[in-house]
């Protein structure tokens, strides 16, 4: 496996691939956090989650275009505006979808899968009609393009650092939301017994809608982060949806800590192996391992004692 690299080189490669893995980890984690809320807490299988992410990516793309045309002086900070916009747009669409579609299907979780798949097809075609089938990439402001040199051989891209920071903020926010504020309790109450939750004074429809909206909004933020590591195309979301579901299931669907741990493991394993093997084989080996572990331990890495 050494293939003529010296030990020091291997160290640097591991560090740099590791950091490349961290960018992937950020996108995975943001996707997975949104899905952990929607799937883990609410029990809805949202196959259109990838399309919400791509929506965020397109919002980021449009914001960058608008800033280049009308506000070139403020271009340096457009990314932060784009993140907020992506959250709002994806969240709003999420709430609309919940109102129009998902609320009719809470009793049939498997059917949400089919319905949201239909939704994802429609969204893909919308993107294709509006933005064209070709991939689009965003221009990054100059200060984000650079790299911080840690040592002579290890260089770390700044946009990766920003995406990491963003991910950390969102993770803390989700943690507070689910475990510290009453919100998570209300969501779980609604899911475990809708009628009873309504009887004790929880506005179940409001809880559903806002929770779904937040999950989709976080997917939108993932889209913003995604523009930093890849180019956006109408079908890019589909490539990530299975990985994301695996991340959530692998971590243990109800456990946010598990989601973080599994997103980290999967993205790091993939990124590190990609350097030595071809990309597709790295992906196959990681997915196979995850599926294998899930067959031995179906409840995932971290188990919360939750009443089903």
């Amino acid at each position, binding site marked *: 496996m050494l293939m003529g690299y010296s030990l020091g080189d291997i160290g640097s490669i591991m560090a740099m691939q590791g950091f490349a893995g961290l960018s992937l980890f950020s996108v995975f984690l943001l996707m997975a956090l949104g899905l952990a809320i929607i*799937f883990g807490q609410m*029990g809805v*299988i949202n*196959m259109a989650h990838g399309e919400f992410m791509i929506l965020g990516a397109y919002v980021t793309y449009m914001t960058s275009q608008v800033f280049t045309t009308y506000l070139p002086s403020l271009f340096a900070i457009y990314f932060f505006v784009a993140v907020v916009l992506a959250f709002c747009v994806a969240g709003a669409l999420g709430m609309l979808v919940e109102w129009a*579609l998902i609320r*009719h*299907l809470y009793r*049939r*979780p*498997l*059917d949400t*899968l*089919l*319905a949201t*798949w*239909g*939704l*994802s*097809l*429609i969204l*893909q*075609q919308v993107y*294709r*009609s509006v933005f064209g089938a070709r991939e689009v990439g965003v221009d990054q402001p100059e200060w984000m393009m650079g790299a911080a040199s840690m040592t002579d051989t290890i260089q770390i891209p700044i946009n990766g650092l920003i995406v990491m920071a963003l991910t950390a903020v969102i993770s803390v926010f989700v943690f507070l939301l689910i475990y510290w504020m009453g919100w998570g309790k209300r969501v779980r109450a609604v899911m475990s017994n809708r009628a009873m939750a309504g009887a004790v004074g929880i506005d179940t429809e409001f809880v559903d809608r806002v929770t779904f909206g937040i999950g989709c909004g976080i997917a939108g933020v993932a889209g913003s982060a995604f523009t930093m590591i890849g180019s956006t195309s109408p079908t890019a979301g*589909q490539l990530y949806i*299975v990985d994301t*579901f*695996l991340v959530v*299931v692998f971590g243990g669907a109800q456990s946010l800590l598990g989601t973080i741990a599994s997103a980290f493991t999967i993205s790091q394993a993939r990124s590190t192996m990609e350097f030595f093997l*071809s990309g*597709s*084989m790295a*992906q*196959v080996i990681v*997915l*196979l391992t*995850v*599926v294998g572990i*899930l*067959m*031995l331990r*179906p409840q995932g890495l971290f188990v919360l004692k939750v009443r089903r």
Partner: protein
Amino acid sequence: MTFLNRKDIAAIAILAVLLLAVLPLCLDPFRLNLVGKYLTYGFVALGLVLCWGDAGILSLGQGIFFGLGGYCMAMYLKLEASSPEATKIQSTPGIPDFMDWNQITSLPLFWRPFHSLAFTIVAVPLVPVLLALIIGLAMFKRRVGGTYFAIITQAVAAILTILIIGQQGYTGGVNGITDLRTLNGWDIRPDHAKIVLYFINGGLLIVCVLLAQFVRRSKLGRILVAMRDKEDRVRFSGYDVANFKIFVFCLAAGLAAIGGAMFTLQVGFMSPSFVGIVPSIEMVIFCAVGGRTSIFGAIYGALTVNWARTTFSEGLPQLWLFAMGSLFILVVVVFPDGLAGIYRRYLDPLVDRMLPPVRRRIPVAAVAETPQVSPTFAE
């Protein structure tokens, strides 16, 4: 034929007449070949009715089994098409062309048995069923079901696709296995061969319908439905729920594999685009549109959706995804039982009124054994 009531016999007769007489007479060979292609999805839909509609196990990996069946058949056909004489311009004659392009100099070990037609015919259902058995044993024995099962099968479909695309030299990569010519010396490319294959396909489908109906009307079929509705109660009654689930999952896999092999024969190639997540979900949709609890509904669903897809993509390709997406949403939200549900609600009572009443020749004790109503009404 105790497992068929009068309506089943009528429905099978209508299906047989439609597939084996009406369509071949009305359509030109090109269109007939297309219908044959759609019907191969009918096999998958049939399996899904048993697995998903009856037993409540949603598999998002039927494309795996469809693809494996298809690939087994394609490997045999490809080996026959790459005899040393036909491939003498290659640097290594006698191996498939894509292997030669990928600098592979000898036939890989797992390709070798596919020289034999008998082995291939056994392998077509057996390889997918074995994989289904492994997945089923690992999952159902640990009481994993529902959404988790769906996601894992989906992941397996993703893995298989990536593997096939990545291992170009062994599998033909993203192009798949193409340029298939003869089946045991018989050219499958001309129109008359396609018509013969269409009839074989239609006949096999009818046989599989009979098999599926037999399973559904047996005691096993009723246990499957009971399991879907109240799994714990079935378990507490002393049945080993996992084994029933594994059986029905394997059966569905085998049916899908037959469809895949027929697909390869009729279309003339096999590629990873029929294996992955997207085709797998589409197969579920065919079944859902037709009606997940009706065998005939599922077959008509596969025909209708595919026909609509061809029509749309010929005329208005950009509208196709909109139409398909809206169709899914509509079917799931408004008509959960699909076409069959509409039929049952509006047409079935009419049919009942038109048929003369059944004369009960069955002794009273046996009545409990012959359900007059299909078990799917038990909701």
